[in-house]
């Protein structure tokens, strides 16, 4: 049992010290060009009690309310953040979104009504950081969680750190990399890409697209 644990621990290589296996280092960008008006951060909360220093809360914010859409798992047991985020986007008709808040270490899935409240609280606490008057349409934040199924989030720990995560927002490559690391679970490297492009009607404008993703197991997505 202990030997198995030791072997498995090696795969959490972005967790304890941020090291990436040599064979995977080529997939981690050393620089990037990121979209204007978006700020990101990766902050340590300690969602898992064993996590003593690795970022596990990602915060992504738009300087102005923006358009947003999402696709979600079609699994019938949808996690609380899936339900909460889908309803938020429906209510807002894909507009007026300010941020995305993501924790790793606990999926907040199959956690009942309490889990729904936890997901809603994460969104509302992220909203509070912007100090904007309510527009009557509820939260402006997409919420995501990843990790083990069937456990409640240590919600107060997360809520306490959201203002810190907001204060840590920035636009540098390091900020983006920290956010990409914060959403990792059994991933061995953070997954982050950025590109520039132009559009036919505005050939002189340089647009940017950037994205981060996570996933290593329980992967056969079927989202809509």
């Amino acid at each position, binding site marked *: 049992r202990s030997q198995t644990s030791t072997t498995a621990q090696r795969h959490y290589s972005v967790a304890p010290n941020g090291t990436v296996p040599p064979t995977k280092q080529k997939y981690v960008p050393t620089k990037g060009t990121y979209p204007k008006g978006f700020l990101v951060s990766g902050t340590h909360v300690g969602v898992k009690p064993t996590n003593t220093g690795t970022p596990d809360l990602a915060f992504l914010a*738009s300087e102005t309310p923006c358009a947003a859409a999402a696709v979600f798992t079609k699994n019938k047991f949808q996690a609380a953040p899936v339900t909460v985020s889908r309803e938020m986007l429906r209510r807002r008709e894909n507009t007026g979104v300010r941020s995305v808040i993501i924790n790793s270490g606990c999926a907040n899935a199959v956690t009942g009504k309490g889990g729904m409240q936890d997901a809603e609280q994460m969104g509302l606490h992220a909203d509070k950081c912007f100090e904007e008057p309510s527009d009557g349409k509820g939260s402006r934040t997409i919420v995501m969680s990843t990790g083990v199924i069937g456990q409640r989030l240590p919600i107060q720990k997360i809520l306490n750190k959201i203002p810190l995560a907001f204060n840590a927002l920035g636009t540098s490559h390091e900020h983006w990399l920290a956010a990409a690391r914060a959403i990792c679970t059994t991933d*061995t490297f953070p997954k982050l890409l950025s590109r520039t492009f132009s559009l036919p009607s505005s050939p002189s404008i340089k647009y940017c*697209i950037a994205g981060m993703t996570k996933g290593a197991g329980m*992967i056969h*997505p079927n989202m809509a």
Partner: protein
Amino acid sequence: TLLGVITTDAPVAPALLSSLLTNAVNKSFNSICIDGDTSTNDTVALLANGAAGGKEISSDSSQDYYSFQGILTEFATDLAKLVVRDGEGATKFVTVRVTESPSEAAARKIAGTVARSPLVKTALYGKDANWGRILCATGYSLISEPGLPASDVPEIVPEKTSVSFMPSDGSPELKLLVNGEPESVDETRASQILEHEDLEIVVRLGGGQAEGVYWTCDYSHEYITINGDYRT
């Protein structure tokens, strides 16, 4: 679980974002498989704040829309491929391409079935050019498929089906099965091809023009080790 966030400073009308994202995801994140399990939490979000200025993409029949759709799909595909490259315990990155199909939906279904097959994935880990397992997965992939209209379900004809490995080094394909007849496989060359991290499996149905692609990885001992230790 798969999570993803994509952001752009291009101006896109909110009403168009869902179709742009759905089209991109169907050809990227919805076309990958590591272990065949669909999570309770999978979510991919797209945010567009228009901060770079310019003319808003406001029509789904505009040149800008088609251009952005292509950029977004390619970008999402590259992100999705990174997930496969980090599959738990994976040692290989495998593209499964099904061609000459009467419909894209059927081609994707077949590609996904091959990509999900534990026996195909363990053969890949063992560097075994086991076309029999690929053919087996192809053969059962469209059985009991209520989601596809009858007109879209191609008849898989064994005598028209071919299987090849496309090496990642650009050298000619290694034909394993041609029109249902097994080739005399050069085992040395097969081993050389399977030594590489990247590999492409091509299944030709010989019955149309449509194509479907999935990206997958192999199954290794490490996958069991990791997930035998992951506790709820």
